[in-house]
């Protein structure tokens, strides 16, 4: 058939139901795209062609037997390699887990398998999801499909590039400080960062437990809604998922935006944000205003402190979460011959972690150590409260906020590798959203003069993902 891999989920599912093509046909075109492009993009680190083929064939049998199939049945999906997949290697792109094969599925995988997903493989990321460029991976960087000399963004860079390069219809990712929205923006597709607790994190490697969220990348707003419907909701295995009703997300599509109040946080359009990016976002805002939305400026004065809050809180939580990697219960034992248990731990972790992980664990250890805990960790938690309160005040005035995702376009591979602080600044406009625990959807907003994608984010109050979808869908249609 050819080019079936370029379809959206909804178009592919329609074709399956109408028997225009089979799930095996879809999968073959996706595998061909991986074969053709993965060598240069490095989006997938593991491809499970055999497992995917078995599930695709099973779905085709169901269709042939006249069984009703779900919206995601038979649709190829890529999974960030931070998310445990039973029987399929899950490395977190870290040397310490390079051969780890989990004996269980994450809840998100279980839920998608219940819908007959076709899991095509595992996608590249910054080691343990720490980074904004996917360069900190033991498998090497993912490259940007629009310019191979540039990064795909991170940490879910492989997931973003895989969707843009039509290697599959959608992918799963995680967003702790921008790890879905930044790569979605850099690769020109849709990236959903959900409300903290909306999607279960059970079976997903923990980075910073009070910040981590699971979300996804897709080629259209409708597809974002379909996947969200499948994965959202309370899970007994993740007690941070509250019992908040999951609405019908498709019900937010096809609506207008008349009378909707849209806030533009002025700090997100200030110094350091490139002019072309501001203009592209404002052009989309103008479409909404023309359609009757009420646009107003809002104030989030503590925006500039969010990165600092992040770089205290995240390393602190991460240093505790990554204590479990000691080369004993799972992960690589040291190659050397340690003389005692202490030596064993230090060697296993010294050999097994990459630079960015070592940096973050050490920062976390430092800020949690005696004498510094109050000055750094407790202080950061208080500043986080200030940021949360500012979001709450803004949402008293507006229904959603719109802002650029990244202040800069996709940067060159290697550009910030020796300057971690400069790299952290690429997340300056995404991190506050995670601090507040609210949802945001990254949406394509055109390209700059160099042909590189620009993304905007639609930010909504907690558990109001539907509003993000409503505005995004309107922009997609107008």
């Amino acid at each position, binding site marked *: 058939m050819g080019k079936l891999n370029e379809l959206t989920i909804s178009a592919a599912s329609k074709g399956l139901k109408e028997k225009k093509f089979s799930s095996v046909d879809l999968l073959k075109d996706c595998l061909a795209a991986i074969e053709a492009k993965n060598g240069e993009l490095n989006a997938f680190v593991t491809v499970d062609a055999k497992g995917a083929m078995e599930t695709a064939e099973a779905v085709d049998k169901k269709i042939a037997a006249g069984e009703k199939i779900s919206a995601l049945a038979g649709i190829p999906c890529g999974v960030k390699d931070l998310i445990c997949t039973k029987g399929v290697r899950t490395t977190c792109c870290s040397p310490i887990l390079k051969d780890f094969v989990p004996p269980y599925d994450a809840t998100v995988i279980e839920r998608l398998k219940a819908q007959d997903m076709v899991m095509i493989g595992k996608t590249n990321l910054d080691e343990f999801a720490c980074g904004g460029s996917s360069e900190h991976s033991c498998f090497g960087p993912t490259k940007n499909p629009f310019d191979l000399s540039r990064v795909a963004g991170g940490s879910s860079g492989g997931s973003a590039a895989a969707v843009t390069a039509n290697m599959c219809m959608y992918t799963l990712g995680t967003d702790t400080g921008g790890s879905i929205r930044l790569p979605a923006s850099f690769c020109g597709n849709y990236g959903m960062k959900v409300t903290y607790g909306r999607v279960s994190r059970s079976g997903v490697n923990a980075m910073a437990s009070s910040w981590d969220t699971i979300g996804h990348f897709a080629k259209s707003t409708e597809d974002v809604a379909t996947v969200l419907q499948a994965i959202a909701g309370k899970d007994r295995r993740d007690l941070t998922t509250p019992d908040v009703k999951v609405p019908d997300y498709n019900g937010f599509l096809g609506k207008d935006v008349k009378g909707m109040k849209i806030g533009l946080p002025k700090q997100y359009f200030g110094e350091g944000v490139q002019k072309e990016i501001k203009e592209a976002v404002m052009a989309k805002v103008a479409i909404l205003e023309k359609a009757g939305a009420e646009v107003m400026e809002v104030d989030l004065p503590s925006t500039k402190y969010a990165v600092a809050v992040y770089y205290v809180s995240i390393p602190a939580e991460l240093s505790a979460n990554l204590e479990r990697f000691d080369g004993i219960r799972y992960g690589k034992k040291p190659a050397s011959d340690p003389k005692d248990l202490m030596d064993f731990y230090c060697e296993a972790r010294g050999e097994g972690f990459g630079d960015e992980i070592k940096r973050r664990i050490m920062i976390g250890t430092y800020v949690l150590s005696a004498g510094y805990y109050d000055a750094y960790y407790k202080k950061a938690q208080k500043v986080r409260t*200030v940021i949360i309160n500012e979001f709450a005040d803004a949402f008293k005035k507006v229904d959603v906020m719109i802002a650029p995702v990244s202040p800069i376009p996709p940067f060159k591979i290697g550009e910030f590798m020796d300057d971690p602080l400069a790299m952290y600044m690429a997340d300056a406009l995404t991190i506050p959203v995670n601090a507040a625990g609210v949802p945001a959807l990254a949406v394509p907003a055109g390209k700059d003069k160099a042909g590189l994608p620009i993304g905007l984010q639609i930010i909504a109050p907690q558990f109001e993902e539907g509003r993000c979808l409503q505005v995004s869908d309107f922009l997609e249609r107008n």
Partner: protein
Amino acid sequence: MLNDDQVKHVAKLARIKLTDQEVKKFGKQLSSVLEYIDILAEVDTKDVVGTNQVTGLTNVMDKDEVIQGQSTKSELLKCSELPVDGGQVRVLRVVK
């Protein structure tokens, strides 16, 4: 600026063995991050309560019952590269 001994101390607390070259490199990088986060001191947080959880959950309870996980004990034990003995992973001696 963190000196070499401070970096080595933090690395030891974190159970990470560093080469001499790494001590130098990380010392510089960690110092620049720590210097940057000092910006937090500017924010007035008098009477502000710190955030631990963002959606308002407190003391989440579950039924006190045993539920079967997805994987068995032997499957979990197979995740270790170390020798397994009597249903336990054998590690280096702790008490000398």
